[in-house]
């Protein structure tokens, strides 16, 4: 059968299984095996276990569970609320200051965890009730945190960047570095929108009767400094070429547990166990998706679907900007239904050669892809962040969160536009620090 038709069929089967409510990992696995058998008969079964194992047998992948553990340790402490409290004391005079503090805290927290849902949960638990108490509408408060949380997969360490690096054989360190400025840019875009909205609606009056002295401002710093140092340390280890991502993440996880134990006196076995338990759950879920997506990619390439799509796109004879627009739309749609990790593993082996052929930079494309995935995180039906927020603040309807997140989603689209116009936003920093790619 024509590989393209097979590919189309595989997509249809996968979407149907996904919509049936099956776990994403198993829908991927089932589709993969199903089409392998169609192509190769019962003999295809022989390679399944081997392939599944091989897709996880990669040293760099294990930085994912480690970074998740690091995030879950910090999330279990009061670090998140301390963080935004500290920012608030410095920024409270600005219109929408609390909102801006919360987004800033999301950004910093993203740098600590590499995971979007973890960022949302940690900052949102404290930030959303506080914002609502001070008179911010529920939609704005929840939307800002949902959007701020998406920074988790852009600002290093980022789990999706690790997966992209492995799938496309690009440098994970370089990818991490490439996420820094776009992350800052998005944070500024989110903050500007919040400021504008708060200013227009007069929310700054709510904050005016508060006053923090310089002493108040400095007294909160010691609590968050160790975590900021940890971020710097992990990044330094990665970019100084001192350690691999896996080493940095392992040590980072270890140190963050120690820090949480010392600073926040979290030493009760039950709490410590909960930290490990939640990290294990999330890691198993993600790694299972990664393994099954590996099987899916194997099926795609052994049925020549990957190659077929690449040839088909090459034959379309569109200019590179049209190509980029199509790819963006495709990624957006895929991101609506699948978790970022799955999208990256399934599409990047096909897309990256095409993109590189068209003259785009694969590191830059990694950032672009991540921005697309961020939109998927705050849009239904999968929109993980929306559900996280919904589970934290149960009295706010999902619809309200959605509306609140919408302007931030437009910020993301604008971010994609800026990144396309000025690719240096992503590539300048890694090139400057690590030298240009040969």
């Amino acid at each position, binding site marked *: 059968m024509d590989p393209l038709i097979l590919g189309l069929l595989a997509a249809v089967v996968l979407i149907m299984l996904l919509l049936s409510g*099956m776990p994403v990992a198993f829908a991927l696995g089932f589709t993969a095996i199903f089409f392998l058998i169609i192509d190769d008969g019962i003999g295809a079964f022989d390679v399944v276990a081997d392939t599944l194992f091989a897709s996880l047998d990669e040293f760099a*992948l*294990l930085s994912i569970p480690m970074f998740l553990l690091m995030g879950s340790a910090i999330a279990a402490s009061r670090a998140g609320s301390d963080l935004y409290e500290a920012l608030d004391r410095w920024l409270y005079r600005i219109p929408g200051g609390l909102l801006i503090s919360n987004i800033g805290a999301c950004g910093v927290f993203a740098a600590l965890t590499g995971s979007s849902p973890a960022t949302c949960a940690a900052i949102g638990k404290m930030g959303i009730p506080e914002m609502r108490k001070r008179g911010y509408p529920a939609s704005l408060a929840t939307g800002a945190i949902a959007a701020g949380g998406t920074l988790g997969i852009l600002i290093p360490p980022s789990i999706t960047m690790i997966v992209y690096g492995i799938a496309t054989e690009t440098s994970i360190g370089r990818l991490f570095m490439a996420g820094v400025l776009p992350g800052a840019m998005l944070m500024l875009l989110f903050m500007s929108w919040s400021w504008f909205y708060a200013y227009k609606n007069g929310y700054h009056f709510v904050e005016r009767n508060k006053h923090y002295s310089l002493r108040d401002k400095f007294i909160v710093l010691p609590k968050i400094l160790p975590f900021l140092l940890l971020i710097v340390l992990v990044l330094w280890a990665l970019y100084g070429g001192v350690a691999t991502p896996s080493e940095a993440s392992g040590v980072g996880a270890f140190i963050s547990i120690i820090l949480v134990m010392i600073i926040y006196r979290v030493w009760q076995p039950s709490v410590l166990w909960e930290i490990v338990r939640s990290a294990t759950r999330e890691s198993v879920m993600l790694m299972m998706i990664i393994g099954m997506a590996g099987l899916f990619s194997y099926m795609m390439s052994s049925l020549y679907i990957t190659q077929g799509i690449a040839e088909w796109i090459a034959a379309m004879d569109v200019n590179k900007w049209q190509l980029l627009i199509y790819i963006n739309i495709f990624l957006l749609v895929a991101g609506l239904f699948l978790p970022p990790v799955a999208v990256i593993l399934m599409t990047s082996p096909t897309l990256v050669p095409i993109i590189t052929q068209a003259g785009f930079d694969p590191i830059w494309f990694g950032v672009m892809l991540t921005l697309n995935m961020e939109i998927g995180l705050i849009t239904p039906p999968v929109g993980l962040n929306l559900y996280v927020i919904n589970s934290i603040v149960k009295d706010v309807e999902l619809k309200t969160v959605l509306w609140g997140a919408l302007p931030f989603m437009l910020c993301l689209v604008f971010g994609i536009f800026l990144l396309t116009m000025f690719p240096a936003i992503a590539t300048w920093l890694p090139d400057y620090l690590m030298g240009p790619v040969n």
Partner: protein
Amino acid sequence: MNALIRFISGLSRLLGILAALLLIAGVLVVVQMVFLRYALSESTSWQTEFVTYALIASTFLGAPYVLLTRGHVNVELVPLMLGPKSRFVLALFAYSTSALLCFILTYYSYLFWYEAWSAGWTSDTVWGPKLWKIYLSMPVGFFVISLQYLVDLLCLVTGRELPFHIADVNEEAA
């Protein structure tokens, strides 16, 4: 029947604990490796491989526990749109398809394990551990997750649990 459900859930929990311990072991070994390599400038041999295998095993062994605690991400769009009856049918389909996949994977990962065991495969590194020990996590994990799915199906059919665990808010209104 309740005893059976409890037994299988207990089994999933036990493997979940094992998965968590493997994660802890992984972290500790990485820390030890970094210490050896950077503080004492010694070379390391088995650590990289050990940690990789520990986390792979953690993934397969932890999967049943994640199913038990509803941690596998899925798309709930359609199940949420449907009425209770069609949702039940859809859940029946989704659970049994997943169960089928897990049974298939159990069998074929068992064959894979058996091959490694009977031929005495070792990994081609200096450390060279016996591979069957690591591969064992696959059939064990998939077998228990298959059982866990059977329990879920059982609970679904006997009405012990709601399809997709979605509580129907509109039921009272209707």
